Every structure is written in structure tokens, then in C-alpha cells.
């Protein structure tokens, strides 16, 4: 029996200015189950990134309800949302968003530094190395991000997203800033992670990579175009 990790009920998002009201999302209903690999795709401006921001508690919805592992997280304070993000969600951004001044180790360790459990340095070190090994970058532990290629940087970002054992990885256009070879490597890593049990929800406009997901969600003008289609796994 599937367990819902993320559950969105009638989620809507309106951007308001003095003169204009834009309905970025319209009554989105979506369930992401444990172990899922969901891709969200659609044309530019359809609301993909907005939806991912709301799912990642980076932004708040204008209407509807949102549950993570059965807990209603719709109206959390900024600090409560930060705590949930830290414990339950791992982010991977298009532009990697690594901190230039920090080494690879420190970048990956960052979520653990903010963790409520306050793990000790030995635990942090062990966990960081494990994650860097998963993405094949344990030999680059002391490097600074600007000493790495784009593909390597994105793999560091993946390690950072994994380090706090999140319930779900939210991935925003992971290959957008990469050449095709690096992009393939990154997608391979994500595929491996999902096969190992990690739940992934990914925004992409590349149909090739969208097809790699087991569940595909198509967005158009802020609404889900069709019911999520689950791919048959052979």
C-alpha cells in the first residue's frame, strides 16, 4: 500500500500587484507517494517552479491545504517551515546554489548544521562522506565549488540535498545549466537514488528527462492538464 509523502489539496497561488492579479496555480491536487519519481513539466510560465516552491515550503499558497507525511503544513510560521524544510525536504536547484566561500564538505554539511538534533562533528563528517560517495565526489571534499565543473557542482548539490535524510527530494530543472554529458550523469545519479528508495519530485521542461520519471504531471496555465500518469515499470 502506497504512503503519501506529499498531499496537495486544491492548492492555488495568486500573485497580486496594484493593477493585476495573476492566478499562477489553480486548484492543484497532487499526491506524491513514498518512493515515487514524479516529473512536473509544461511550457514556460505554466507554474512549475511556483508549484515546486510551495511544495518545498519556500513559498506559501493562497488557498488550499498542504500535508507532508500527513501533517498539515499550510500555515506554518517562517521558523517552523524552515524546520520542516530541513528535516523533510532536500532541494536541488537549476543553478546549484552552492556557497562559493565554503568547501564541498562544508556545503554538504550545511543542512546538518541547522538540524534540530545538532549532530556532533563526527556524525556530520560520516554522513557527508557517505553522501559524497553516493554521488561519486568523495575525492573532491576540500575543493571550493568554483574549482568544480557544472556537473560536479550539481552532484555536490544532490549530496547536500540528501545529507539530512529528507522524505523527498525536490528538484528544479537539474540539468538546465549543464552540458548534455553532465546532465546525463546527474540524471543517472537521481535515477540511482530513486531506485534505492528516495522519493523525488522534479520540475523539468526536457521531455527526455521527464520520461525518466515514473509519474508525469503536465501543467498548463497553472492547472494540471491531465491526471498524473504512472509509467509502467517493466
Amino acid at each position: 500500500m502506497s504512503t503519501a509523502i506529499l498531499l496537495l489539496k486544491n492548492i492555488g497561488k495568486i500573485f497580486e500587484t496594484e493593477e493585476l492579479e495573476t492566478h499562477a496555480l489553480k486548484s492543484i491536487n497532487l499526491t506524491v507517494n513514498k518512493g515515487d519519481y514524479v516529473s512536473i513539466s509544461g511550457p514556460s510560465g505554466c507554474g512549475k517552479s511556483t508549484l515546486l516552491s510551495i511544495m518545498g515550503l519556500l513559498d506559501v499558497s493562497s488557498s488550499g491545504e498542504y500535508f507532508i507525511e500527513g501533517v498539515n503544513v499550510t500555515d506554518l510560521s517562517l521558523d517552523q517551515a524552515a524546520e520542516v524544510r530541513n528535516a523533510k525536504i532536500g532541494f536541488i536547484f537549476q543553478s546549484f546554489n552552492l556557497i562559493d566561500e565554503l568547501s564541498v564538505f562544508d556545503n554538504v554539511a550545511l543542512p546538518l548544521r541547522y538540524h534540530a538534533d545538532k549532530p556532533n562533528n563526527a556524525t556530520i563528517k560520516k554522513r557527508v562522506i557517505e553522501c559524497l560517495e553516493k554521488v561519486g565526489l568523495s575525492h573532491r571534499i576540500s575543493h571550493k565549488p568554483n574549482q568544480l565543473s557544472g556537473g560536479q557542482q550539481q552532484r555536490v548539490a544532490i549530496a547536500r540535498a540528501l545529507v539530512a535524510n529528507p522524505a523527498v527530494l525536490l528538484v528544479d530543472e537539474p540539468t538546465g545549466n549543464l552540458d548534455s554529458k553532465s546532465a546525463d550523469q546527474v540524471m543517472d545519479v537521481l535515477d540511482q537514488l530513486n531506485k534505492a528508495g528516495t522519493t523525488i519530485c522534479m520540475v523539468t521542461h526536457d521531455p527526455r528527462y521527464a520520461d525518466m520519471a515514473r509519474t508525469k504531471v503536465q501543467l498548463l496555465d497553472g492547472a494540471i492538464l491531465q491526471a498524473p500518469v504512472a509509467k509502467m515499470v517493466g
Partner: protein
Amino acid sequence: MHLFAYQLKQAFLSLKQKPGFVFSIVSTMGITLGALLCVLTLAYLLLIEPLPYPEQDRLFVAEHKVLGDKKETKTVAYSYAGLVHLYQSKAAFEQAAIMYYDQDVILSHLNQPLVNTTYTTPELHQLLASTMATGQMFTASEALDTNNPVAMLSYNTWQQKYDGSADILEQKINIRGVSYRIVGVLAEGFVEPELAEIGRETQVWLPWDYNQTDQVSRKSFLSIKGNFKFLGQLKKGLSKSQAQQLLTPLVSKRWQEGVADMEFFKAWSIEMRVRSVKDVMLGESESIAVMLLAGVIGLVLIACANISNLFLARTAEKQRQMAIQAAIGATKKQLFKAMLAETSLLMLMSIILALILAKGGFYLMQQYLGAVLPRVNELSLNRITLSCAALTTIILALFFAKLSTRIINYRELNASLQSSGKGSGLRVSTKTRQVLIASQVALATLLVFANFSLLKDAVKTINTPIGFTTNNISTLTLNFSSTPLSSEEEVIAIMAEIIEKLKTLPQVEAIAHGSSPLDGFGIKLLTKLDDNEGHSPYLKRIDHRYFKLIEQPLLQGENFTKLDSRDNNYSMIVNQAFAKQLTPDGDVVGMRLVSINEPEFKIIGIVKDIAIPGDTPFGSDDVAAPIPRAYVPDNLDDNNFILKIKAGQSISRQQLGKLLAEVDARYSVFSFKSANDMLTQSLFTQITTAVTTTVLTLITFFLAGIGLYGILSYSTQMRRFEIGTRMAIGAKRGDLILLIIKDNAKPIISGLLLSLVILLSVYFFFSVDLSTYITLQLAPLFVATLLLISTLSLLACYLPLRRFINSPAISNLQGSE
């Protein structure tokens, strides 16, 4: 040149679009540079500009130090006989003049104004090479013992008191019943050396022979007064120290001969001190000028750090425009020139504002600091001010242009045309930001601390209780305009009648005989009968109503009675400080003291100490200790009165003049002053210091606050995406506040430490010169300053961060608001 003109035009058009930016820069730099030009001009005048007299480096003032039996300095002042002896000896000086500074009423003038008078020998104006607006200066016919009643007026007196009258040389002026023929008016540009006190300007010059020293005092070596001065031109080849060595035995020997019949002075002596006119005039003003200069330079540096920040942000903003210019072939040098055109225009506007403010500053200094700083009347927008202004404009324009273009990587400019703008703009390097923060913090800490320490001293003096009331108290001094003087009995009768008349005025609540409680003290030499120990307290003659009227408490014993004055009783009341000086337990009631050529004084009471601002003890360097004082009954012929006016009422000078005329037309009002005004006047330096330092502290704090906020805000803005990323991976607001504070702690702590190092260096290397200003007792104040600047820095860290951490993380990641 043609291109630069074009760039100037473009810069003007570009700046027109940015009125806020222009206003920030022109107002900040205009105000601080205005202050800098003001203080630079003053410092030049005080420290470098020679005095406007021929051979001014040979003009010296000879001072007469009276040394006690332990060779301690009792006072620095002449006796009449001693001064005239030195003048007539012609020793060490090629030419010399003597002066007696006073105040008199011009009785022949309709308004009977009180004016500053100087009685002098003719050599003074010869030494100063004074020029005349009309008439002539004193000549040999006004030399010592010629008794020729002539007068010279200052230019201002001629203009203000006589409306610049063309027949001024045909007029006479009556002072104290003597009619003086006006023989000349000094030129408008004449600058009087401020030897008596800073800011004092002589309005009427009179021959030496007519000074107000009575015939007995003229022969005395003990009638020592502070208003005698000696100025001379040293003989060629003679040094200052040689002159001192030559004069000391000569003057001391004559003085000791003059007091030989008095045992009290057996071991006393005179030491001559010769100082240049400039040193006498400047006194401590040189250090004030240096401190002011240091303070203002600190302010300008803070302003420069602030403006640097604005220019850096402006360069970042103009990145795309510069990239287009580079793409179409502008060289690095041309981009620098374009930036220089903009900085030049801004600095030009700033310096014009600065010059206007400096002119206003000169006026304010002349109005309010004339009594504190010498030579302020010579302040003007002169070639020094204008040269400094031009040089400052050029240096700052070049500096800001260079700083702005320094952050441009010319090779990467083109890349910015393709960038999405997401965090890829021009950035001020971390090192530059940290240097700016550290320098702001160090400068602000030093300036705020310096101002705090000055403010603390000034406020302490202002708040020190004086020990008596000045509220509704006024002092009336009479002027007697007839010679010969009346007999003592006649004067006593007139004074008694005047008191009765004054009592009839409805505004008068009470009246006492005596001079203002804030002055009128002389020095009395007394010897204790039991151990022959000599004492020299300040002495004042008062009547039985004095202490009650000014509310100075009598602590022990009894007050004078009416009979004490009438019968010339030799009773004395002393203050606590003198009582303790006489015996450690202070129990002196009944003790007897002997004075020279007088019967014994018997102490009948002890009053509470008073603290008159600016008073220094006779023969002691401990300015903080209470001054020993003694009071004796007046002999009823004193022409000074203290009036207690009913609350909310006042008396005019005219009303008093009319009343005096009714009693005896020979008497007129010399001065009528409120004690509160006199107290404010005596606290003028402290009040000026308090106001100036408070304003400077606020400006420093304001500028430092804006500067720190600016650079930290810019720094935080540059880290917006990083903050967004950290928020995305779970950082709470507290984590981010700590992060920013921790990251900025290094330059802030560096700045604080730098200020400490500078202060300690100053303390150790200049401890002798600055011992008055920097002491270890100021350590708590420095800690307080550190806390204040740290709080300011923490606020400057937090406030720019607030808007990022209080909005959803996505706002920072997208860069949207």
C-alpha cells in the same frame, strides 16, 4: 579635452536622473568639507600664519612669577612698582611698552557706555607698527610721567559710538572725570594682540599715566594685579632664555628690596619668564586647533567611507552601460575619465556648498568663539581656504573615480551583457568591504570616545554645584566721575543713602554691600599666631547681609553684624577649605591671624565652600581642590552692591542711573549684571565644549550609522541568494542573524581593536602632551564607547537582513520583492 567636456555633459545629464544620489553625496561631503575648511583655516591661522606685526618673532612678553618660600609659583602678575622698574631698566629689550587693561564708562557720551580701555606707553603702537584711519598714534609727548590727556579710539568705537564722525579729532572724551582730547583712530585692519584675555578688544586707548592705580599702590611691590602687561622687542642676538637669566636677578633683587621690611616675604622671590607674543596669545589654543582638526578629519574620513560605498553601488548599477561602452570600443582609460567627470561634478558641487558653509562657520566662530579662541576675527575665505578647497576637490574626485573603476574587470564587462543578472553583477570584493567596515568602526569609536571624554569633563564642571544661589541676583557697580575723590566719611554717607534709595525700588527684595559672589576676591597674606605659618587665601569684603542674600550656608560660629562694618572690627569668617588648611580638624572659630600692617583678625565663623567656575587656587596646581577663602567686613564705602530682585521682575540700567543721579550726580552706573549671566559667561568654555562635542558625537554617530548600515546593507544584498539557499535547506531566522553577525564580527572587532591600538599608542607616545585629555580613568568610558559602537554595528548587521529573513525564501532565490 573635447571628449572630457562631452563626458562632463553626459555626467550632468546622468546625475540629473539621480537626485537622491546627488543630494546624499553633496550634502554629506558639503557639510563635512565645510567643517574641514573652517577648521583648516583656523588651524593655519593659529599654527602657521605669522602675527601681522613687523619682526613678530622678536616680540616677547615678559612675565613676573612670584615664588613662595618653597619656590612654588604663587602668582604670575606684576606689581605697579615692579613693572615700572622693569620698563625703565631697558634691560634685554630694544624697545618695550607697558599696558594696564581696564574697563571704563565714557561719561561724555550720551549713552554712557562701558568700554574696554588700555592705558599704555607710546612704544606699544610703534612695536606693532599700527596704522591709523585718521589722526596720529601716541608719541613721546604721551610717555611715562608726561600726564598728557589724549586718547585714541579703535575703528569700531569710532564707527559704532561716534557714527564715524568726520570731526572726531576735534572731540573730547570724558572718562572718570578726566577729559581726553581724541588724537587718532586706529585703522580698520589693525589687529590687537590678545594679551589680557582672548577676544578682548580695546575700544579706547589712553596714556599710561592715567591708569587707575592709586598713589599708594604705585609705590608698592605688593599691590599685585593681573591686568599689568609688559611687551618688548628683544635685543638682537639675545635668546629667550638669556633674557630670562638677565632679567630674573635684576627684577627679583629690586622686589626683595621693596618688601624688605616685611618678614613674611623674606624667603619669597621673583622669576622672570619670557614668552613669545604668539605663545601668550595662543595658550592652549594650539592643542584645541589640533584636536578640532583631528576630529574634523575623522568626520571627513567617515563621510568618505560612506560616499565610497555609494560610488561602489553606483558603479555596480552602471555596469551594463559601461559594458555597452566597452563593447563599442571605449578603453579602460576612457571609462575612468567618464567616471572622473561624474565624481568631479559632484565634488565641485560639494565644495561650493562647503565654501558657503565655511563662510557661515567663520561668522559663527567670530560670534560665539571669540572669547575662547584667539585670532578668530582674522578668519576669512582666504587663499589658504581656497587652495585647500581646490586641492581637496581634485584629490577626492580622483580618489572616488579610481575607487569606482577599480572594481570593474574590463575583460569581463562583455560577459555582463549576456548574464541573466542572477547574482552575477559587479561586486565589491570582500576585502574592500571589510576594510570599509573596519575603518568606519575604528574612526567612529575614536571620534565618539574623544567627544565623550570632552563632554564628560565639560558636563561635570557645568553640573558642579557652586554653593550659592545666582537666581534673581544682580550686581551693581558704580562709576565715580569726579576728582578729587570725596572723603571716606562723605562716601560712606552717600553709599548708605544709595542703599536706602535702592530699597525703595519695588522690584528689590533685598540688598547687600559687596561685589558679585562670582568675583571680587583678592589675595590676603595672613600668618597664624601660634606657629607663624603663612597662608594666602582669597579674600572678599562683605557686609552682614551677604551670606543670607546669596544663600551661602554658615556652618559654624556667627555671622558679621552691622556694627562690624561700622566699627571696622577685625573679625573674619573663613570657608571650610581655609579652616582645614589652618587646622586639620577645621575647628578654627576663635583663632587669631595676623596680616601685614594690620591688627589681628579673629575668626568668628565658618561658611560652606563655594566653587566658582574657572577659579584657580593661589600658589597651587590642584585646580580640583576647594579654594581657601576668607571674608572680612567691608567699611561701608564700597561702590559695589548685590541686589536680590523679586521673581519675574527686572530693573533697567536707566532706572538705576536716574536713582543715582537723585542721590549724587557724580555717580553713574558702571555695570549692572545678572549673576546668572555672569555664571553662564564663566561657564562659556564648558557650555561651548558640551554643545560642540554633543553635536559632533551625534554627527559622528549619525554618519557612522549610515555608513555602517550602507556597507552592511550592500554586503547583505550581495548575499541574498546565499541567504535564500540557506533558508531553503532549513536555516531559521536566528541562524541567519548569527551568520551575518559572525561574518561581520571580524571587521567590526578589527575596527574596535584598531581604535584601541591607536588610543594606546597616543597614550604612550604623547602622554606628556595629552595627559590632561587621556588618562586611565577614561577606561570605563572607552568600554562604554565600545559597547555603543558594537550595538550600532549589530543593528547595522540586523536591519538590512530583516527584510530578507522575514519574507518567504523564494523571494530571495528569485530576487523578487
